[in-house]
């Protein structure tokens, strides 16, 4: 339930006046593309085009294109945009929508699974323990962090989302 409500709100936000005001000032100068490390190595990825599509309300086209996930969130575009458009932050919102409508890259499913299970993104193996001991590092105490995290995931609808992703 939460997921659908969330999605509606997000789409409303992106299509809404405040947001569109921010996007409409984009004059397609391409400064964001010039500094983008992903565009540098893959010419198909283009934040300027994402902004253009967004200003035309073509949200479906953006989220149906897997290239959206290529943004590595380095914020160079946000820093350089002469119109002060927070490009990277806008792309995150679009990813939030794409996640709910179409799902997420497999790497992120695994990361989320790990977080739901342990509250962290890496586990403590016996090899880790040994290495830490050799280096005179304090023992890592396993607390029940994951109980809190499970509650948060439940409250934000992310646990249901994860279940759906795992079943795919």
């Amino acid at each position, binding site marked *: 339930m939460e997921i659908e409500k*969330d999605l509606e709100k997000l789409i409303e936000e992106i299509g809404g006046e405040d947001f569109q005001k921010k996007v409409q000032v984009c004059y397609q100068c391409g400064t964001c593309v010039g500094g983008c*490390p*992903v565009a*540098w*190595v*893959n010419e198909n990825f283009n934040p300027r085009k994402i902004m253009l599509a967004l200003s035309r309300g073509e949200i479906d086209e953006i989220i149906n294109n897997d290239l959206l*996930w*290529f943004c*590595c*969130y*380095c*914020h*160079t575009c*946000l*820093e350089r945009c002469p119109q002060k458009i*927070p490009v*990277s*932050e806008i792309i*995150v*919102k679009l*990813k*939030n929508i794409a*996640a709910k409508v179409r799902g*997420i*890259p497999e*790497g*992120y499913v695994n*990361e*989320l699974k790990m*977080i739901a299970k342990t*509250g*962290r*993104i*890496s*586990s*403590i193996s016996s090899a*880790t323990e040994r*290495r*830490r001991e*050799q*280096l*005179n*590092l*304090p023992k*890592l*105490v*396993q*607390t029940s*962090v*994951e109980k*809190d*995290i499970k*509650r*948060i*995931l439940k*409250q*934000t*609808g*992310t646990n249901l*989302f994860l279940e759906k992703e795992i079943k795919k």
Partner: protein
Amino acid sequence: MKRTRATKEESNLEKENKDYLLFKGCLIPSSLPYMEVAARRALEILEIKITETDNFSCCPDPIGIKAISELTWLSMGARNLCIAQEIGKDILTLCNGCYETLKETSHALSEDSELLEKVNKILLPLNRKYEGNTIVKHIAEVLYLDIGTNQITNMIKKPLYGLKVAAFYGCHLVRPSDVMNFDDPEEPKSLDELIVALGADSLPRMRKMFCCGAPLLGVNMDLSLNIAKENLDNIKTSGVDCIVTLCPFCQTQFDRNQKVVERRFNKEYNLPVFYYPELLCLALGVDPYQLGFDLHIVKVDQVLNKIK
């Protein structure tokens, strides 16, 4: 410099109370313990006290988790900030990712009371309530502003004269600059100055503030390695002996994945990669055998021999 940094006056005030709550993060304690060793030793020698807790979760990751759900990302971040609030200390992070997540969460929830209320509703079943304004610092920030480069230079026992270094800041140490507000987002100087403080040289290069590419490892391996290669090419061309990082993701990308890039693109870089506190420890006279250098993938002997 476009942005103002914390002034020296402010950092002097803090000098009396250098006691931070250590946020170890996920990756360092489990996969890169040598980074933790160096950070702990350096802080100890520079007399920065740390308090610890086992109750932190993943920060969480500002790229993957935030892309899935901003609200989940904020709520998990806020839970961690609540723990710092309960203990009553500022947070010290060892990782750019943790730094961005926790600092941005603190910033966002302090600016937007509606959002804070929303997040606190999510934290209610956890019996936690976030009040806002937790101070979050990166270890580089503590070294640069609390201790200062002069003090570091005064304390070193084995200057790293002649060592040529590529400073790799990593994106989230400085961007988004209106939130991080630590150093210039395009031409930062803190890490370069911290390197020079040890007697080493920090050399210029092309596209210095490029992303390391690590965030894309779980999305598209090719893309991630292509970005790593772009960086490694520019670093090699600049004529340095080694790379210095401030983040476990950059560290992994250049140390572990350097070999992968070499194989894939038929290249040879042979560039040892150090976490800044490791170099700092060497300059402070810590015995290299205590620092776990054998855990590095690219062997560091050539650098150790050079600075002997």
